């Protein structure tokens, strides 16, 4: 199962947490509980006025709180100009 996550190590990833927050950073490590190590983390805050990035540095995210881990394609990522979008909706939190 976690063999697929192994291939993400050392690459830029996007984490969506259960409370609906987005973090981008480089995945440095993980364990069986999907606790994650992220370096050079940025929180992406989406609001009606566009996207804002806040630098958070080194982070350990507890597995309980992880909803999604996505691999970022840097070529595509660089093409996206977030400032062009005037209205970006924040992601809703997970409902248990």
């Amino acid at each position, binding site marked *: 199962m976690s063999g697929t996550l192994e291939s993400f190590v050392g690459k830029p990833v996007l984490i969506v947490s259960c*409370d609906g927050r987005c973090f981008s950073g480089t995945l440095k490590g993980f364990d069986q509980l999907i606790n994650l*190590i992220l370096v050079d983390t940025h929180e992406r805050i989406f609001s009606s006025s566009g996207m804002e990035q806040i630098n958070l*540095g080194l982070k350990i*995210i*507890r597995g309980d*709180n992880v909803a999604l881990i996505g691999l970022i394609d840097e070529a595509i990522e660089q093409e996206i100009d977030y400032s062009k979008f005037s209205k970006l909706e924040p992601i809703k939190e997970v409902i248990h």
Partner: protein
Amino acid sequence: MYELIKHSAWKFKSILKSKHFSLISIKMLPLSLLKTAQSHPMLVELKNGETYNGHLVSCDTWMNINLREVICTSKDGDKFWRMNECYIRGSTIKYLRIPDEVIDLVKEDIQAKSKNRNQQQQQQNRNTNNQQNNRNFGGKNRQNQNRNRNNPNNK
């Protein structure tokens, strides 16, 4: 042909032993990073939105953590509490923020550990070799032991 195989096997072995390979094969676990972060300042956010700023004293395999000189901030960031020490149950944690330099310390820790392990293994190998040597020359020793056992003066 045989020489070629022998040479490639030797090369593979030397790659396995080399420093670069150990650097590649380092597996960093979140809990070992947390352990390395002991005595460093950190920020812990709980699932209820409260944040705790303090120095890490200790942690365990359930991510339960012990903090010193703590400042607790309410979810909305409008209320603050100061306390000398607190203990946080791991399951209530959402995430931890750790100083950037700790990641370099983990690499050093892991390298030091693997070095120790190699040394221990070498020591063990040396011991087993010695045992084998003793076994090879065991006939004489055993005779000595027998002589000692038979000697009533040794009791």
